[in-house]
Protein backbone atom coordinates (compact mmCIF):
# COMPACT_ATOMS: atom_id res chain seq x y z
CA UNK A 1 0.00 0.00 0.00
CA UNK A 2 1.33 3.41 -0.93
CA UNK A 3 2.05 6.14 1.57
CA UNK A 4 -0.98 8.16 0.44
CA UNK A 5 -3.36 5.24 0.71
CA UNK A 6 -2.38 4.76 4.36
CA UNK A 7 -3.45 8.34 5.19
CA UNK A 8 -7.05 9.16 6.07
CA UNK A 9 -8.97 11.52 3.80
CA UNK A 10 -9.15 14.08 6.59
CA UNK A 11 -5.39 14.02 7.07
CA UNK A 12 -4.92 14.53 3.36
CA UNK A 13 -7.26 17.52 3.35
CA UNK A 14 -5.57 19.03 6.38
CA UNK A 15 -2.23 18.61 4.71
CA UNK A 16 -3.66 20.28 1.66
CA UNK A 17 -4.79 23.33 3.57
CA UNK A 18 -1.60 23.59 5.56
CA UNK A 19 0.50 25.06 2.76
CA UNK A 20 -1.67 28.06 1.89
CA UNK A 21 -2.28 28.60 5.62
CA UNK A 22 1.40 29.51 5.89
CA UNK A 23 0.48 32.87 4.40
CA UNK A 24 -0.99 33.71 7.78
CA UNK A 25 2.56 34.24 8.99
CA UNK A 26 3.16 36.77 6.27
CA UNK A 27 -0.10 38.69 6.46
CA UNK A 28 -2.35 39.40 9.43
CA UNK A 29 -5.92 39.13 8.17
CA UNK A 30 -7.26 41.40 10.94
CA UNK A 31 -5.41 44.28 9.32
CA UNK A 32 -7.62 43.95 6.25
CA UNK A 33 -10.87 43.55 8.13
CA UNK A 34 -13.66 45.75 6.91
CA UNK A 35 -17.23 45.85 8.02
CA UNK A 36 -19.83 44.74 5.55
CA UNK A 37 -23.55 44.17 5.20
CA UNK A 38 -26.38 46.23 6.58
CA UNK A 39 -26.03 48.36 9.69
CA UNK A 40 -25.59 46.23 12.74
CA UNK A 41 -25.56 48.83 15.48
CA UNK A 42 -22.12 49.90 16.58
CA UNK A 43 -20.12 46.79 17.33
CA UNK A 44 -16.69 47.23 18.78
CA UNK A 45 -13.71 45.91 16.78
CA UNK A 46 -13.68 42.95 19.11
CA UNK A 47 -17.32 42.01 18.77
CA UNK A 48 -17.21 38.29 17.88
CA UNK A 49 -20.52 38.51 15.99
CA UNK A 50 -19.46 41.44 13.84
CA UNK A 51 -19.76 40.67 10.11
CA UNK A 52 -16.46 41.29 8.34
CA UNK A 53 -15.30 40.92 4.75
CA UNK A 54 -11.76 39.65 4.43
CA UNK A 55 -10.13 38.43 1.24
CA UNK A 56 -13.62 38.18 -0.27
CA UNK A 57 -14.98 36.02 2.56
CA UNK A 58 -18.10 37.17 4.42
CA UNK A 59 -17.29 36.04 7.97
CA UNK A 60 -18.01 36.58 11.63
CA UNK A 61 -15.08 38.10 13.48
CA UNK A 62 -15.05 35.04 15.69
CA UNK A 63 -14.29 32.94 12.58
CA UNK A 64 -10.87 34.57 12.47
CA UNK A 65 -9.53 32.69 15.46
Amino acid at each position, binding site marked *: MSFFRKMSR*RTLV*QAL*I*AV*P*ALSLFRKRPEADAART*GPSRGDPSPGDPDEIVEIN*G*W*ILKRSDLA
Partner: protein
Amino acid sequence: MIFDGHEAYRAANFKPKVCILGSGPAGTTIARKLGAAGIPVVVLEAGSREYSDESQDFYRGTTAGDFYFDLDITRLRYMGGSSNHWAGWCRVLDKQDFEPKAWAPDTGWPIRRADIEPYLPEVHDILELPDFRPDVPISDDIRWVQLIKSPAVRFGEKFADELDKSRNIAVVLNTYATELAGDGKRVTGAKLWSNGQDAGPFSADYFIVCTGGLENSRLLLWSNQRSNGGVIPNATALGRYWMEHPTFEGGNAILADYGEFEVDAVNEAFFSPTLAAMERLRIMNFGIRLIETPYAGVKHVIADLACTAPDMAEWVAYQLSQNLRCAAQLYVAWEQAPLASNQIKLSKTDVDHAGVPRIELHWKKSELERRTLVEGLKLFGTTLIEKDLGRVRLMDWIANGEDYPTDEETAGHHHMGGTRMGTDITRSVVDANCKVHGMDNLYVGGSSVFCTSGQANPTTTITALACRLGDHLSKVVAV
Protein backbone atom coordinates in the same frame (compact mmCIF):
# COMPACT_ATOMS: atom_id res chain seq x y z
CA MET B 1 -52.62 23.38 -41.66
CA ILE B 2 -48.95 23.96 -42.31
CA PHE B 3 -47.73 25.35 -45.62
CA ASP B 4 -44.14 25.54 -46.84
CA GLY B 5 -44.55 28.97 -48.38
CA HIS B 6 -46.94 31.75 -49.26
CA GLU B 7 -47.77 30.39 -52.71
CA ALA B 8 -49.18 27.14 -51.32
CA TYR B 9 -51.00 29.08 -48.61
CA ARG B 10 -52.60 31.43 -51.14
CA ALA B 11 -53.80 28.48 -53.23
CA ALA B 12 -55.67 27.14 -50.18
CA ASN B 13 -57.76 30.34 -50.11
CA PHE B 14 -57.74 30.47 -46.28
CA LYS B 15 -59.40 33.64 -44.93
CA PRO B 16 -57.81 34.64 -41.59
CA LYS B 17 -59.13 37.32 -39.28
CA VAL B 18 -55.89 37.46 -37.34
CA CYS B 19 -52.28 37.40 -38.55
CA ILE B 20 -49.64 36.37 -36.02
CA LEU B 21 -46.02 37.04 -36.88
CA GLY B 22 -43.76 34.40 -35.33
CA SER B 23 -44.33 30.85 -34.06
CA GLY B 24 -42.37 30.93 -30.80
CA PRO B 25 -43.92 30.45 -27.35
CA ALA B 26 -46.01 33.64 -27.60
CA GLY B 27 -47.16 33.26 -31.21
CA THR B 28 -47.99 29.58 -30.96
CA THR B 29 -49.84 30.00 -27.65
CA ILE B 30 -51.96 32.88 -28.95
CA ALA B 31 -52.71 30.99 -32.17
CA ARG B 32 -53.87 27.91 -30.24
CA LYS B 33 -56.11 30.04 -28.04
CA LEU B 34 -57.70 31.77 -31.04
CA GLY B 35 -58.01 28.52 -32.98
CA ALA B 36 -59.76 26.91 -30.01
CA ALA B 37 -62.18 29.86 -29.97
CA GLY B 38 -63.06 29.19 -33.62
CA ILE B 39 -61.24 32.26 -34.96
CA PRO B 40 -59.31 31.74 -38.22
CA VAL B 41 -55.69 32.74 -37.72
CA VAL B 42 -52.58 32.62 -39.87
CA VAL B 43 -49.13 32.31 -38.32
CA LEU B 44 -46.26 33.56 -40.46
CA GLU B 45 -43.00 31.84 -39.54
CA ALA B 46 -39.86 33.26 -41.14
CA GLY B 47 -37.92 29.99 -40.93
CA SER B 48 -38.76 26.44 -41.83
CA ARG B 49 -39.20 23.38 -39.60
CA GLU B 50 -35.46 23.06 -39.07
CA TYR B 51 -32.50 25.35 -38.45
CA SER B 52 -30.69 26.74 -41.48
CA ASP B 53 -27.73 29.10 -41.80
CA GLU B 54 -29.55 31.01 -44.53
CA SER B 55 -32.48 31.82 -42.28
CA GLN B 56 -30.31 32.57 -39.28
CA ASP B 57 -28.30 35.09 -41.27
CA PHE B 58 -31.27 37.48 -41.17
CA TYR B 59 -30.55 37.85 -37.42
CA ARG B 60 -27.03 39.19 -37.74
CA GLY B 61 -26.50 42.60 -36.16
CA THR B 62 -24.08 44.61 -34.08
CA THR B 63 -23.80 45.44 -30.38
CA ALA B 64 -22.40 48.46 -28.58
CA GLY B 65 -21.63 49.05 -24.91
CA ASP B 66 -21.00 46.05 -22.67
CA PHE B 67 -19.88 42.76 -24.15
CA TYR B 68 -22.87 40.83 -25.52
CA PHE B 69 -23.49 37.77 -27.64
CA ASP B 70 -23.62 37.80 -31.44
CA LEU B 71 -27.22 38.57 -32.35
CA ASP B 72 -27.47 35.58 -34.72
CA ILE B 73 -26.38 33.25 -31.91
CA THR B 74 -28.57 34.44 -29.08
CA ARG B 75 -31.91 33.55 -30.76
CA LEU B 76 -33.26 31.15 -33.36
CA ARG B 77 -35.22 31.77 -36.55
CA TYR B 78 -37.27 28.67 -37.32
CA MET B 79 -40.53 27.03 -36.28
CA GLY B 80 -40.84 27.29 -32.50
CA GLY B 81 -38.45 30.24 -32.37
CA SER B 82 -36.02 30.47 -29.49
CA SER B 83 -37.84 27.73 -27.59
CA ASN B 84 -35.62 25.52 -29.73
CA HIS B 85 -32.61 26.31 -27.56
CA TRP B 86 -33.98 27.27 -24.17
CA ALA B 87 -32.78 25.31 -21.15
CA GLY B 88 -36.22 24.90 -19.62
CA TRP B 89 -35.90 26.89 -16.41
CA CYS B 90 -39.32 28.05 -15.30
CA ARG B 91 -40.70 30.51 -12.77
CA VAL B 92 -43.20 33.28 -13.26
CA LEU B 93 -42.12 36.78 -12.23
CA ASP B 94 -42.51 37.59 -8.53
CA LYS B 95 -45.39 39.68 -7.23
CA GLN B 96 -42.89 42.38 -6.27
CA ASP B 97 -41.54 42.52 -9.84
CA PHE B 98 -44.78 44.14 -10.99
CA GLU B 99 -44.65 46.89 -8.36
CA PRO B 100 -43.03 50.32 -8.88
CA LYS B 101 -39.80 50.87 -6.95
CA ALA B 102 -38.99 54.35 -5.72
CA TRP B 103 -35.25 53.79 -6.08
CA ALA B 104 -35.45 52.59 -9.70
CA PRO B 105 -37.15 54.89 -12.23
CA ASP B 106 -39.59 53.51 -14.79
CA THR B 107 -40.38 50.37 -12.81
CA GLY B 108 -43.90 49.06 -12.21
CA TRP B 109 -46.37 47.40 -14.56
CA PRO B 110 -49.93 48.46 -15.38
CA ILE B 111 -50.99 44.93 -14.41
CA ARG B 112 -50.28 42.88 -11.30
CA ARG B 113 -49.16 39.32 -10.93
CA ALA B 114 -52.73 38.46 -9.95
CA ASP B 115 -53.75 39.34 -13.51
CA ILE B 116 -51.77 36.46 -14.97
CA GLU B 117 -52.10 33.95 -12.13
CA PRO B 118 -55.42 32.55 -13.47
CA TYR B 119 -53.48 31.39 -16.53
CA LEU B 120 -50.77 29.50 -14.68
CA PRO B 121 -52.53 26.10 -14.73
CA GLU B 122 -52.74 26.44 -18.52
CA VAL B 123 -49.07 27.47 -18.65
CA HIS B 124 -48.12 24.44 -16.57
CA ASP B 125 -49.84 22.17 -19.10
CA ILE B 126 -48.07 23.85 -22.02
CA LEU B 127 -44.63 23.80 -20.39
CA GLU B 128 -45.22 20.42 -18.69
CA LEU B 129 -44.59 21.73 -15.21
CA PRO B 130 -45.54 20.36 -11.80
CA ASP B 131 -46.97 22.71 -9.20
CA PHE B 132 -44.56 25.16 -7.58
CA ARG B 133 -44.18 25.20 -3.83
CA PRO B 134 -44.50 28.59 -2.09
CA ASP B 135 -41.31 30.54 -1.41
CA VAL B 136 -39.67 29.69 1.92
CA PRO B 137 -38.31 32.66 3.90
CA ILE B 138 -34.99 31.71 5.49
CA SER B 139 -34.57 35.17 7.02
CA ASP B 140 -36.17 38.62 6.86
CA ASP B 141 -33.94 39.28 3.85
CA ILE B 142 -33.69 36.09 1.82
CA ARG B 143 -36.27 33.75 0.30
CA TRP B 144 -35.54 30.20 -0.80
CA VAL B 145 -37.39 30.18 -4.12
CA GLN B 146 -38.13 27.48 -6.64
CA LEU B 147 -37.19 27.39 -10.29
CA ILE B 148 -38.24 24.21 -12.02
CA LYS B 149 -36.44 22.79 -15.00
CA SER B 150 -39.19 21.78 -17.41
CA PRO B 151 -38.63 19.35 -20.29
CA ALA B 152 -37.74 22.52 -22.26
CA VAL B 153 -40.71 22.28 -24.59
CA ARG B 154 -39.82 22.93 -28.22
CA PHE B 155 -43.01 24.61 -29.38
CA GLY B 156 -42.46 23.73 -33.06
CA GLU B 157 -42.05 20.02 -32.31
CA LYS B 158 -44.66 19.74 -29.60
CA PHE B 159 -47.48 21.45 -31.45
CA ALA B 160 -46.68 20.66 -35.11
CA ASP B 161 -49.26 17.86 -35.40
CA GLU B 162 -51.93 19.84 -33.63
CA LEU B 163 -51.33 22.87 -35.84
CA ASP B 164 -51.23 20.75 -38.98
CA LYS B 165 -54.62 19.19 -38.17
CA SER B 166 -56.26 22.45 -37.15
CA ARG B 167 -58.90 23.85 -39.49
CA ASN B 168 -58.70 27.29 -37.86
CA ILE B 169 -54.94 27.75 -37.85
CA ALA B 170 -52.71 28.07 -40.91
CA VAL B 171 -48.96 28.13 -40.32
CA VAL B 172 -47.01 29.48 -43.28
CA LEU B 173 -43.32 28.60 -43.12
CA ASN B 174 -40.46 30.47 -44.80
CA THR B 175 -42.68 33.56 -44.82
CA TYR B 176 -42.69 36.80 -42.87
CA ALA B 177 -43.61 40.45 -43.00
CA THR B 178 -40.74 42.72 -43.94
CA GLU B 179 -42.89 45.66 -42.92
CA LEU B 180 -46.33 46.62 -41.73
CA ALA B 181 -48.19 49.60 -43.17
CA GLY B 182 -50.44 51.80 -41.07
CA ASP B 183 -52.38 55.07 -41.08
CA GLY B 184 -51.86 56.00 -37.43
CA LYS B 185 -55.09 54.25 -36.38
CA ARG B 186 -54.86 50.79 -37.92
CA VAL B 187 -52.43 48.48 -39.60
CA THR B 188 -53.63 48.48 -43.18
CA GLY B 189 -51.51 45.65 -44.49
CA ALA B 190 -48.12 44.01 -44.66
CA LYS B 191 -45.45 43.31 -47.24
CA LEU B 192 -44.51 39.64 -47.30
CA TRP B 193 -41.28 37.89 -48.10
CA SER B 194 -41.49 34.17 -48.76
CA ASN B 195 -38.92 31.59 -49.77
CA GLY B 196 -36.33 34.21 -50.59
CA GLN B 197 -38.44 36.62 -52.59
CA ASP B 198 -41.02 39.36 -52.40
CA ALA B 199 -44.47 37.80 -51.95
CA GLY B 200 -46.56 40.94 -52.29
CA PRO B 201 -49.10 42.62 -50.03
CA PHE B 202 -51.11 40.89 -47.33
CA SER B 203 -54.01 41.96 -45.13
CA ALA B 204 -55.90 40.77 -42.07
CA ASP B 205 -58.20 42.38 -39.53
CA TYR B 206 -55.69 42.10 -36.70
CA PHE B 207 -51.92 41.79 -36.51
CA ILE B 208 -50.06 40.32 -33.53
CA VAL B 209 -46.28 40.81 -33.55
CA CYS B 210 -44.56 37.90 -31.76
CA THR B 211 -41.16 37.76 -33.43
CA GLY B 212 -39.00 37.88 -30.30
CA GLY B 213 -37.52 40.31 -27.81
CA LEU B 214 -35.16 41.84 -30.36
CA GLU B 215 -37.03 41.40 -33.63
CA ASN B 216 -40.33 42.92 -32.44
CA SER B 217 -38.61 46.28 -32.02
CA ARG B 218 -36.75 45.92 -35.32
CA LEU B 219 -39.91 45.19 -37.34
CA LEU B 220 -41.88 47.99 -35.69
CA LEU B 221 -39.06 50.55 -35.96
CA TRP B 222 -38.66 49.78 -39.66
CA SER B 223 -42.41 49.70 -40.31
CA ASN B 224 -42.86 53.00 -38.52
CA GLN B 225 -40.04 54.59 -40.46
CA ARG B 226 -41.50 53.38 -43.75
CA SER B 227 -45.03 54.55 -42.91
CA ASN B 228 -44.02 57.91 -41.43
CA GLY B 229 -45.24 57.04 -37.96
CA GLY B 230 -48.37 55.26 -39.13
CA VAL B 231 -47.68 52.02 -37.26
CA ILE B 232 -46.50 53.28 -33.85
CA PRO B 233 -47.99 56.78 -33.52
CA ASN B 234 -46.35 57.27 -30.10
CA ALA B 235 -42.86 55.96 -30.73
CA THR B 236 -40.77 57.68 -28.04
CA ALA B 237 -40.25 54.44 -26.13
CA LEU B 238 -40.07 52.12 -29.14
CA GLY B 239 -36.91 50.03 -29.01
CA ARG B 240 -35.97 51.46 -25.60
CA TYR B 241 -35.81 50.02 -22.07
CA TRP B 242 -34.26 46.85 -23.42
CA MET B 243 -33.15 44.47 -20.64
CA GLU B 244 -31.26 41.25 -20.01
CA HIS B 245 -30.44 39.17 -16.97
CA PRO B 246 -26.73 39.70 -16.27
CA THR B 247 -25.38 36.30 -15.21
CA PHE B 248 -22.00 35.61 -13.61
CA GLU B 249 -20.37 33.24 -11.18
CA GLY B 250 -20.47 35.31 -8.00
CA GLY B 251 -18.52 33.18 -5.55
CA ASN B 252 -18.64 30.10 -3.39
CA ALA B 253 -20.45 28.98 -0.29
CA ILE B 254 -19.40 26.57 2.40
CA LEU B 255 -22.39 24.92 3.96
CA ALA B 256 -22.89 23.19 7.28
CA ASP B 257 -25.27 20.79 5.61
CA TYR B 258 -25.56 20.77 1.85
CA GLY B 259 -28.75 18.73 2.07
CA GLU B 260 -30.47 21.64 3.80
CA PHE B 261 -31.57 23.07 0.46
CA GLU B 262 -31.22 20.12 -1.87
CA VAL B 263 -34.60 19.61 -3.44
CA ASP B 264 -34.29 19.97 -7.19
CA ALA B 265 -33.63 17.03 -9.44
CA VAL B 266 -30.51 18.79 -10.68
CA ASN B 267 -29.22 19.43 -7.13
CA GLU B 268 -29.55 23.17 -7.33
CA ALA B 269 -31.25 25.63 -5.03
CA PHE B 270 -32.21 29.26 -5.65
CA PHE B 271 -32.39 32.27 -3.38
CA SER B 272 -33.85 35.74 -3.88
CA PRO B 273 -34.25 38.85 -1.73
CA THR B 274 -37.39 39.92 0.05
CA LEU B 275 -38.99 43.20 -0.99
CA ALA B 276 -37.98 44.64 2.42
CA ALA B 277 -34.31 43.86 1.72
CA MET B 278 -34.53 45.34 -1.78
CA GLU B 279 -36.06 48.52 -0.35
CA ARG B 280 -33.49 48.82 2.44
CA LEU B 281 -30.48 48.27 0.18
CA ARG B 282 -32.05 49.99 -2.85
CA ILE B 283 -31.26 47.08 -5.15
CA MET B 284 -33.08 45.12 -7.83
CA ASN B 285 -34.25 41.51 -7.64
CA PHE B 286 -31.67 38.74 -7.99
CA GLY B 287 -31.44 34.99 -8.04
CA ILE B 288 -28.51 33.16 -6.49
CA ARG B 289 -28.16 29.65 -7.90
CA LEU B 290 -26.37 27.33 -5.53
CA ILE B 291 -24.67 24.42 -7.29
CA GLU B 292 -22.70 21.63 -5.67
CA THR B 293 -18.98 22.21 -6.13
CA PRO B 294 -16.91 19.34 -7.57
CA TYR B 295 -14.57 17.73 -5.04
CA ALA B 296 -11.47 19.36 -6.50
CA GLY B 297 -13.13 22.73 -6.26
CA VAL B 298 -14.07 22.15 -2.62
CA LYS B 299 -10.40 21.63 -1.77
CA HIS B 300 -9.50 24.89 -3.43
CA VAL B 301 -12.16 26.78 -1.49
CA ILE B 302 -11.03 25.26 1.82
CA ALA B 303 -7.41 26.05 1.07
CA ASP B 304 -8.39 29.65 0.40
CA LEU B 305 -10.40 29.83 3.61
CA ALA B 306 -7.44 28.46 5.55
CA CYS B 307 -5.53 31.62 4.70
CA THR B 308 -8.15 33.75 6.41
CA ALA B 309 -9.88 31.62 9.04
CA PRO B 310 -7.89 28.45 9.78
CA ASP B 311 -10.14 27.10 12.50
CA MET B 312 -13.13 27.50 10.25
CA ALA B 313 -11.22 25.77 7.46
CA GLU B 314 -10.42 22.84 9.75
CA TRP B 315 -14.08 22.51 10.66
CA VAL B 316 -14.95 22.53 6.98
CA ALA B 317 -12.30 19.94 6.26
CA TYR B 318 -13.93 17.76 8.87
CA GLN B 319 -17.31 18.27 7.22
CA LEU B 320 -15.78 17.36 3.92
CA SER B 321 -14.44 14.12 5.32
CA GLN B 322 -17.90 13.34 6.66
CA ASN B 323 -20.02 13.86 3.59
CA LEU B 324 -17.75 14.96 0.74
CA ARG B 325 -20.15 17.71 -0.25
CA CYS B 326 -20.10 20.89 1.73
CA ALA B 327 -19.28 23.59 -0.78
CA ALA B 328 -21.20 25.19 -3.59
CA GLN B 329 -20.66 27.52 -6.51
CA LEU B 330 -22.86 30.58 -6.49
CA TYR B 331 -24.12 31.84 -9.81
CA VAL B 332 -26.02 35.09 -9.79
CA ALA B 333 -28.59 36.22 -12.36
CA TRP B 334 -30.14 39.52 -11.56
CA GLU B 335 -32.64 42.12 -12.59
CA GLN B 336 -31.52 44.95 -14.79
CA ALA B 337 -33.15 48.30 -14.16
CA PRO B 338 -35.08 49.60 -17.19
CA LEU B 339 -33.08 52.38 -18.85
CA ALA B 340 -34.19 54.27 -21.95
CA SER B 341 -30.57 54.37 -23.13
CA ASN B 342 -30.47 50.57 -23.47
CA GLN B 343 -32.09 50.31 -26.84
CA ILE B 344 -32.48 48.65 -30.20
CA LYS B 345 -31.71 50.86 -33.17
CA LEU B 346 -31.78 50.23 -36.89
CA SER B 347 -28.44 50.13 -38.66
CA LYS B 348 -27.91 52.97 -41.09
CA THR B 349 -25.49 50.98 -43.19
CA ASP B 350 -26.31 47.28 -43.03
CA VAL B 351 -29.43 45.52 -44.32
CA ASP B 352 -30.47 41.87 -44.65
CA HIS B 353 -31.28 40.06 -47.91
CA ALA B 354 -34.80 41.50 -47.90
CA GLY B 355 -33.50 45.03 -47.49
CA VAL B 356 -34.51 45.46 -43.85
CA PRO B 357 -31.93 47.30 -41.70
CA ARG B 358 -30.16 45.08 -39.21
CA ILE B 359 -30.16 45.70 -35.47
CA GLU B 360 -27.72 47.83 -33.52
CA LEU B 361 -28.12 46.82 -29.89
CA HIS B 362 -26.95 49.38 -27.33
CA TRP B 363 -26.65 47.69 -23.96
CA LYS B 364 -24.81 48.67 -20.80
CA LYS B 365 -25.09 47.62 -17.19
CA SER B 366 -25.46 50.47 -14.69
CA GLU B 367 -24.15 51.13 -11.18
CA LEU B 368 -27.47 49.88 -9.82
CA GLU B 369 -26.80 46.49 -11.38
CA ARG B 370 -23.33 46.38 -9.86
CA ARG B 371 -24.73 47.26 -6.45
CA THR B 372 -27.37 44.57 -6.80
CA LEU B 373 -24.71 41.94 -7.47
CA VAL B 374 -22.41 42.97 -4.63
CA GLU B 375 -25.06 43.69 -2.00
CA GLY B 376 -27.00 40.60 -3.01
CA LEU B 377 -24.06 38.29 -2.39
CA LYS B 378 -23.24 40.03 0.89
CA LEU B 379 -26.86 39.73 1.95
CA PHE B 380 -26.79 36.01 1.21
CA GLY B 381 -23.50 35.63 3.08
CA THR B 382 -24.82 37.51 6.09
CA THR B 383 -27.96 35.39 6.12
CA LEU B 384 -25.94 32.16 6.11
CA ILE B 385 -23.96 33.44 9.09
CA GLU B 386 -27.01 34.58 11.04
CA LYS B 387 -28.78 31.29 10.47
CA ASP B 388 -25.57 29.32 11.12
CA LEU B 389 -25.87 27.68 7.71
CA GLY B 390 -22.46 28.45 6.24
CA ARG B 391 -20.12 31.09 4.83
CA VAL B 392 -19.79 32.87 1.47
CA ARG B 393 -16.77 33.96 -0.52
CA LEU B 394 -17.03 36.54 -3.30
CA MET B 395 -15.17 36.10 -6.56
CA ASP B 396 -11.99 38.18 -6.63
CA TRP B 397 -13.22 40.50 -9.40
CA ILE B 398 -16.28 41.35 -7.35
CA ALA B 399 -14.46 41.79 -4.03
CA ASN B 400 -11.83 43.95 -5.72
CA GLY B 401 -14.28 46.07 -7.70
CA GLU B 402 -12.84 45.00 -11.07
CA ASP B 403 -14.62 44.98 -14.44
CA TYR B 404 -17.04 42.24 -15.39
CA PRO B 405 -15.17 39.29 -16.92
CA THR B 406 -15.85 38.57 -20.60
CA ASP B 407 -15.27 34.83 -20.46
CA GLU B 408 -18.31 33.89 -18.38
CA GLU B 409 -22.03 33.39 -18.98
CA THR B 410 -22.54 37.17 -19.23
CA ALA B 411 -26.31 37.05 -19.59
CA GLY B 412 -29.22 34.69 -19.95
CA HIS B 413 -30.10 35.16 -23.65
CA HIS B 414 -33.28 36.74 -22.27
CA HIS B 415 -34.35 39.61 -24.50
CA MET B 416 -36.85 41.85 -22.73
CA GLY B 417 -38.32 45.29 -23.29
CA GLY B 418 -38.33 47.44 -26.41
CA THR B 419 -42.13 47.52 -26.72
CA ARG B 420 -42.89 47.75 -23.02
CA MET B 421 -46.31 47.82 -21.45
CA GLY B 422 -47.54 50.97 -19.70
CA THR B 423 -50.01 53.79 -19.44
CA ASP B 424 -47.63 56.68 -20.20
CA ILE B 425 -47.30 56.82 -23.99
CA THR B 426 -43.89 58.46 -23.71
CA ARG B 427 -42.52 55.55 -21.68
CA SER B 428 -44.35 52.59 -23.18
CA VAL B 429 -45.52 51.17 -26.48
CA VAL B 430 -48.43 48.87 -25.58
CA ASP B 431 -51.24 49.11 -23.04
CA ALA B 432 -52.19 46.61 -20.33
CA ASN B 433 -53.82 44.41 -23.00
CA CYS B 434 -50.67 44.43 -25.16
CA LYS B 435 -52.37 46.66 -27.74
CA VAL B 436 -50.16 49.31 -29.31
CA HIS B 437 -51.12 52.77 -28.03
CA GLY B 438 -53.33 54.55 -30.53
CA MET B 439 -53.72 51.56 -32.86
CA ASP B 440 -56.98 49.62 -33.09
CA ASN B 441 -55.73 46.33 -34.51
CA LEU B 442 -52.05 45.96 -33.61
CA TYR B 443 -50.88 43.90 -30.62
CA VAL B 444 -47.51 42.66 -29.37
CA GLY B 445 -46.74 39.33 -27.71
CA GLY B 446 -43.60 38.11 -25.99
CA SER B 447 -41.00 39.44 -23.59
CA SER B 448 -40.62 42.73 -25.46
CA VAL B 449 -43.68 43.95 -23.50
CA PHE B 450 -41.96 43.36 -20.14
CA CYS B 451 -41.72 46.57 -18.08
CA THR B 452 -39.18 45.05 -15.73
CA SER B 453 -37.27 41.81 -15.96
CA GLY B 454 -37.39 40.43 -12.43
CA GLN B 455 -34.84 37.71 -11.87
CA ALA B 456 -36.71 34.72 -13.28
CA ASN B 457 -36.24 33.22 -16.72
CA PRO B 458 -38.90 34.79 -18.95
CA THR B 459 -40.57 31.90 -20.80
CA THR B 460 -43.12 31.13 -18.06
CA THR B 461 -44.24 34.76 -17.91
CA ILE B 462 -44.20 35.04 -21.74
CA THR B 463 -46.52 32.05 -21.98
CA ALA B 464 -48.83 33.34 -19.24
CA LEU B 465 -49.10 36.74 -20.93
CA ALA B 466 -49.77 34.99 -24.25
CA CYS B 467 -52.62 33.00 -22.70
CA ARG B 468 -54.04 36.22 -21.32
CA LEU B 469 -53.69 38.01 -24.67
CA GLY B 470 -55.23 35.04 -26.47
CA ASP B 471 -58.28 35.18 -24.22
CA HIS B 472 -58.55 38.94 -24.66
CA LEU B 473 -58.30 38.72 -28.45
CA SER B 474 -60.84 35.92 -28.58
CA LYS B 475 -63.38 38.32 -27.12
CA VAL B 476 -62.28 41.35 -29.17
CA VAL B 477 -62.12 39.56 -32.52
CA ALA B 478 -65.38 37.66 -32.01
CA VAL B 479 -67.32 40.94 -31.72
